[in-house]
């Protein structure tokens, strides 16, 4: 089923897909990750050169001024090609958070050029701290200080800068710190999805310029970031889900058991039909959530959460089925299909879990028409 896209969107998708197909080899990726390189600087530079990093940035700030729909096109391809560079992280942070900074011009130029790789740091140990962080932004005779810690930051290994969510005297605050700054310590660890995570500790003095937003603006930025991240993670999940399905269909056509291709067994055909049905339903919701976000639709929050819940549910089921229908070959790390499963599992709880999204969905009434 074709998705409806504008001509520009089709061009973007085709070019990006062609690039990743030619230049993002699964085996090279495996070797790179095994060597502890969770992202590849030459890839990131290529993403910048193709304009992907400028895509979510407003035109008057030197970007391309595109929206969630275009970001989702890239996110979907990230899922399909198992991109480990923090593209959805960087897009969501630059679109939803950095634009609030007084220094936005210079920051966003660096993002677009690929020299500043921003990742949001929200999670802390302990559930209660998740949206009301214990990390503190304090002021002492005109000197700002950030103290606290953040944990399990996906792609934390690849970030050059963190947008840190903290609490301050005036409520929430977003602060931008370099991972190399004095007073920032970073513990990197490998992850099952190959992205490389990190946990951070901060005791840093800050310039005014590093404080991106406080109070109500920071709260709104948090909402915008979470909703965009939900949409983009749903899109990436969708891409990985579709790829898991495609790989399964291809494999079952080739694999012969009992003298015939696996794909000729009706028991398996029906399973693959279900996988397709659910993937298409997810696709509709993900694209609708993009459009709702881009149109500023009153129900955009509901759509973001609906997409997140649907993609998490379907991604899990389809990637599990993909492994089952492959049999033993899917359980080796040398074969691609299990990597979709691992990435989908990691995305399931990234920024917000399915349960949290469900609960938030239930709390948001549908807009009146």
């Amino acid at each position, binding site marked *: 089923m074709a998705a409806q896209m504008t001509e520009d969107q089709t061009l973007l998708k085709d070019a990006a897909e062609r690039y990743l197909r030619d230049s993002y080899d699964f085996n090279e990726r495996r070797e790179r990750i095994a060597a502890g390189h969770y992202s590849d600087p030459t890839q990131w530079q290529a993403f910048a050169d193709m304009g992907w990093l400028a895509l979510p940035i407003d035109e008057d700030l030197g970007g391309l001024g595109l929206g969630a729909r275009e970001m989702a096109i890239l996110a979907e391809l990230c899922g399909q090609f198992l991109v480990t560079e923090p593209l959805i992280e960087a897009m969501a942070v630059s679109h939803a958070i950095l634009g609030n900074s007084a220094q936005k011009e210079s920051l966003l130029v660096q993002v677009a050029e690929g020299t500043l790789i921003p990742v949001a740091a929200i*999670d802390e140990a302990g559930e209660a701290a998740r949206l009301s962080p214990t990390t503190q932004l304090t002021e002492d005779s005109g000197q700002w200080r950030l103290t606290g810690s953040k944990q399990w930051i996906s792609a934390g290994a690849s970030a050059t800068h963190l947008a840190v969510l903290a609490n301050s005297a005036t409520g929430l605050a977003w602060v931008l710190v370099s991972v190399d700054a004095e007073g920032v310590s970073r513990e990197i*660890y490998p*992850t*099952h999805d190959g992205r490389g995570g990190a946990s951070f500790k901060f005791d840093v003095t800050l310039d005014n310029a590093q404080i991106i937003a406080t109070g109500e603006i920071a709260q709104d930025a948090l909402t915008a970031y979470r909703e965009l991240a939900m949409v983009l993670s749903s899109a990436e999940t969708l891409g990985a889900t579709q790829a898991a399905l495609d790989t399964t269909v291809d494999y079952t056509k080739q694999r012969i*058991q009992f003298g015939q291709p696996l794909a000729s067994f009706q028991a398996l055909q029906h399973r693959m039909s279900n996988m397709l049905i659910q993937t298409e339903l997810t696709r509709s919701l993900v694209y609708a959530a993009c459009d709702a976000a881009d149109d500023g639709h009153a129900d955009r929050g509901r759509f973001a959460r609906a997409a997140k819940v649907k993609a998490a549910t379907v991604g899990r089921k389809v990637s599990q089925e993909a492994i*089952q229908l492959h049999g033993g070959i899917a359980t080796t*790390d040398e074969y691609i299909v299990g990597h979709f*499963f*691992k990435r989908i599992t990691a995305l399931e709880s990234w920024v917000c879990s399915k349960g949290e999204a469900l*609960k938030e969905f239930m709390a948001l009434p549908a807009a009146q028409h």
Partner: protein
Amino acid sequence: MNASNPIPTDYETFREGVRAFLKDALSPELVRAGERTTSVFSDFEAGRKWQSILHAKGWGAPEWPIEHGGTGWDIQQRYIFLEECKLANAPNPVMMGIQMLGPMLIHFGTEAQKQQFLPGIISGDDVWCQGYSEPGSGSDLASLKTTAERDGDEYVVNGTKIWTSMAHHSNWIFCLVRTDKEVKPQAGISFLLIDMATPGITVAPFPSLDGEVEQCQVFFENVRVPVTNLLGEENQGWTVAKYLLEFERGGQHFTIELKKQLSKLHRLMTSETNRAKDDPTYAYRVAETEIDVMALEQTELRIKGSLSAGDNPGALSSLVKVSGTELGQRCAELLIEAAGQSAIPWQSEVLSPEYTGETAAPAECVTTMAEYINSRATTIYGGTAEIQRGIIAKHVLGL
């Protein structure tokens, strides 16, 4: 009460005895190996050490008949023993010898074979792996192509086996090989016991999806095996193998492991770190899973109660295998939901029983993702869930 056992067994005293032994015998390293087990295999050395300790105690193979080193325990005692081992976090020894080959040898082996092989299995000195599957023959096992041609008093084996778990740690392999190409596939297969040190055998390990190495491909090039290593008659290998597969499927006590998973889930339900505690359906799903585990437990008891030791549960073992493995997968899903991002770190070194340092994931989550990944394989190995359902359709429903 059992007629041959007129004095009622005092199971509580038995349980206490097992507990006291475990408390004494399990070192902190062995317990860590048990805790950090993410598949059916624990750390290899720890599992091997534990087998030698059990053997020294006379508990090396409780399921075997007493004359071959079994304990003479009744079903209930064997269950209690396994349950206590699990609760005490004893590591799992490599079980292909004890759980799979042992019953075959006892059933089909010659006296000489039993004397040659059973002692090494029960002591853990010999480590056996299972060479059935091949690249082209998984579910359709009968299509296997590894050949054994008779040459005097020897067979000459050529071909390859894949997914051979633990082959890189094994010194023996039991294999299905083709000895007759002219007859219908099942009728031309034999069961061979092969010393892995024989010239012509190459073992190539490869990583599983969780990043650990348990699987291997094994290559045979003109490997000479004495005909005395044939188990059962020539071309009767399929009958031997079928008996073994049913043991493999039914021989596990799924509910012991499942109840352990449930108690983890219950602990998590009230934990501050539970990422799923705001999910309104989570507690319901845990409760429903618990009810399904109860149903499986009663089914296991119903089936096992009607069998005496050493009997073969037949096609009903497929029912238990499908339910047990799929329930295990549900528990693993619930655990990963509760762990969220904290389960995503992958630190291979942490799984070693020697490791006592810090972990990127919280202690209760270090194995969660690997367990979730490996739970997916449980409906693939030992005959896939689809093949099990096929067996039920054919042999139970008569379709």
